[in-house]
């Protein structure tokens, strides 16, 4: 059977040098980052007061909660799923936090873990339904979205202001750096979440299972990976991040309100996708998502600085900037190699 004549060495030397395929997957990330800098440069040239470090920090301050929920969304998107309940769960967290702290006088230190637990539990429950009954995530999380928003209304249709000194203290603490620059506590929390997510996704078994699940769910199952638990956990993570994002939003606005975070799921998903995640799963980076959040925030800032746009031109310009960004991203980053 064996031919014996063929030496293995014949097959080992690969004569064709190509760009390392690993590096190739990073290209979109770099392109996005560069474009972001270009966007910032354009703003600085055009608007007075734009070129300042505080503008960049404000980007973080104003988008910390979005960053957190987008990180959660990234987990789900990486598995090829989708989570529409993000915004509603965040709103539910704001109103529960405000309600428990203000109307019931519970200490913040008790409320926050509770809220996070509810978020994670709710997410995991959705994941369980999705996995066990093989129902499309879109419907299950849409039901979750309705439910969470509905619960908000049943708690209170009015907004609740938080006067609790501890909460206000956390929210209004400014952490000063050199040159009078400052960030808020939620910014640090958001960055911590980002770093944790990065480590989890790239350096733990769970994280790798997430990628495997997105690459091919049936293969992952046949490879003996715990697809069920991974899926449930991923929605749990998303729920947790939504709840945490909601808590940060509570700090940001010092209030709870049933109509907070309307449509935030779309922003989160858009951020992940702009950051290079494929909605079909298996490909994307949390760092890309962070860039995506910054892109959305930057566009918003540019529009605010312009300050002469009417309501409709605001929308049109946001759309146009997004379009320019995406088109450049595609053209500079090159088309995805025709899949094999």
């Amino acid at each position: 059977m064996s031919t014996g004549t063929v030496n293995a060495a014949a097959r080992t030397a690969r004569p064709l040098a190509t760009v390392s395929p690993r590096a190739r997957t990073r290209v979109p990330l770099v392109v996005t980052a560069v474009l972001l800098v270009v966007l910032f440069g354009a703003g600085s040239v055009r608007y007075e007061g734009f070129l300042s470090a505080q503008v960049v920090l404000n980007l973080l301050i104003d988008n910390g909660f979005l960053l957190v929920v987008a990180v959660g969304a990234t987990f789900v998107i990486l598995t090829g799923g989708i989570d529409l309940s993000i915004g509603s769960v965040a709103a539910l967290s704001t109103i529960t936090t405000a309600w428990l702290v203000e109307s019931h006088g519970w200490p913040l230190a008790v409320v926050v873990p509770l809220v996070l637990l509810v978020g994670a539990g709710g997410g995991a429950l959705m994941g369980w339904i999705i996995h066990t009954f093989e129902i499309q995530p879109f419907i299950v999380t849409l039901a979750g979205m309705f439910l969470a928003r509905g619960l908000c209304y049943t708690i209170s249709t009015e907004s609740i202001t938080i006067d609790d000194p501890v909460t206000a203290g956390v929210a209004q603490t400014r952490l000063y750096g050199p040159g009078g620059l400052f960030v808020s506590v939620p910014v640090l929390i958001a960055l911590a979440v980002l770093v944790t997510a990065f480590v989890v996704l790239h350096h733990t078994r769970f994280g790798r299972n997430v990628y495997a699940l997105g690459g091919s769910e049936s293969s992952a199952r046949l490879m003996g990976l715990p697809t069920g638990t991974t899926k449930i956990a991923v929605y749990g993570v998303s729920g947790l991040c939504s709840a945490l994002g909601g808590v940060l939003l509570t700090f940001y606005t010092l209030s709870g309100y049933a109509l907070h975070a309307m449509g935030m799921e779309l922003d989160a998903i858009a951020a992940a996708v702009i950051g290079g995640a494929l909605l079909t799963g298996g490909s994307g980076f949390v760092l890309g998502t962070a860039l995506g959040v910054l892109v959305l925030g930057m566009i918003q800032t540019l529009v605010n600085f312009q300050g002469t746009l009417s309501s409709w031109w605001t929308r049109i310009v946001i759309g146009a900037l997004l379009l320019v960004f995406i088109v450049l991203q595609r053209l500079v980053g090159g088309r995805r190699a025709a899949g094999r």
Partner: protein
Amino acid sequence: MTHPSTQPPTDAGGPRPVLEAHGISKRFPGVLALDAVALRLFPGEVHALMGENGAGKSTLIKVLTGVHPADGGTVLVDGSPHVFTDPLQAQRAGISTVYQEVNLCPNLSVAENILIGREPRRFGLVRWSEVRRRAAELLTGLELDLDVAGPLDAHSLAVRQLVAIVRAVDVSAKVLVLDEPTSSLDREEVAQLFGLVRRLRDRGVAILFVTHFLDQVFDLCDRVTVLRGGRLEGEYPIAELTPVTLVQRMIGGELATLDQLSGRTHRREAGRAADEPFLRARRLTRAGSIEPYDLDIHAGEVVGLAGLLGSGRTEAARLLFGADSADAGEVRIEGRRVLLRSPRHAIARGVAFCSENRKSEGLVGELTVRENIILALQAARGWTRPLTRAKQDELALHWIEALDIRPPDPEAQVRHLSGGNQQKVLLARWLLTEPRLLILDEPTRGIDIGAKAEIQKLVARLAGEGTAVLFVSAELEEVLRLSHRIAVLRDHRMVATLANDDSLTPERLLTTIATGTDS
């Protein structure tokens, strides 16, 4: 035939089976895929599972390992009953499996695909350097040297198959199940694999091995379980069988069919009507995949592409179809220069390409057999000129019969077909477009012996009728038998084109493949 419960195996008094199954039944909507099948695996044996396409081999494996729930029957591991509802449980119980369609994650790196789920860790964090080192080490066990950090989807199907095997072997289980692991490997890899399997067997691992290659069975296996039409035909020590009797057991047929099988198809003389080749490629190249090559294919001629794993056969063929676009070089079809920018252009000029990777590049799993069969023809006509339903049925039924696709139901979803039958559907799709040049990349992958002979005959007949054929196969015998000329590739370079006349012995071809020179 006798039922296994009434016919104990010769070594019944010996060791206890490590894996035992009784009365396994599995019904899919409309099909009874397994009907009270039994199987026993002893430690330290290589056990072949044989049967025609659709006999139920893969289904049996999937039921045993918890992919599908069984409708009836019991599975005993080390004598105690187990019910697996997930492959993970089977793996934990010591059963490691390579399923038929390569099941890996294309978005992950080679190293990860091998080690995911078992990555070496420190403080809960994956040690990537260790992962890469172990993966590279495991691959060298099969004499494979890949960039383990690169994504899997840069590699050909054969490489993926090897990666899947390496992964399964590394689990170091009590039972190793291999469902057609050799379907796209060439001799060298097969030999490597067999060495590995023997080493495992000697360590006491029980190996269940599915293949359609009879010689491999006789080469490697100790006992055989034969399935036929979802039922257990019998269990035999290999020593009691000859290839002919084994085939008889599998197809339950008469000697007439067997005669047909042994009567080898021989290539006919190429009816080279004109000197002008149908297709002429000059200095055709694509950076990173194939160096410039020249190739002529005449009408009525079968040109074989031979080479080792990863030598660039698939990549050379893809350029001729516009599946990848060439960076430089020219292609002339019937003397006219053509730019093959996409498969559409190639198809419009009468070229057809049957991909080696039926799962990801060939079939549309959700569509029916009928729809998959007529897909290429319909695409060529455009959506505004639909084939009538009657015509579709006629074509589908014709090819279902011609290639013996089972179940013979044109409305079955193609993803529910067995691997071999899927391959036949893919072939049917291209055959019915009546191409002028037919490029076949591993067309007989996973096809049983009976059908393989049919397909080879078909290729010979098509060539006889004036079709040009480019035939790529890891099976040298097949290439030698069918081709008029054989182009040899090595390290992504076309090194020789040999006329397949009496002077071309298998040995000479092998030497060319291995050394790159025709001595």
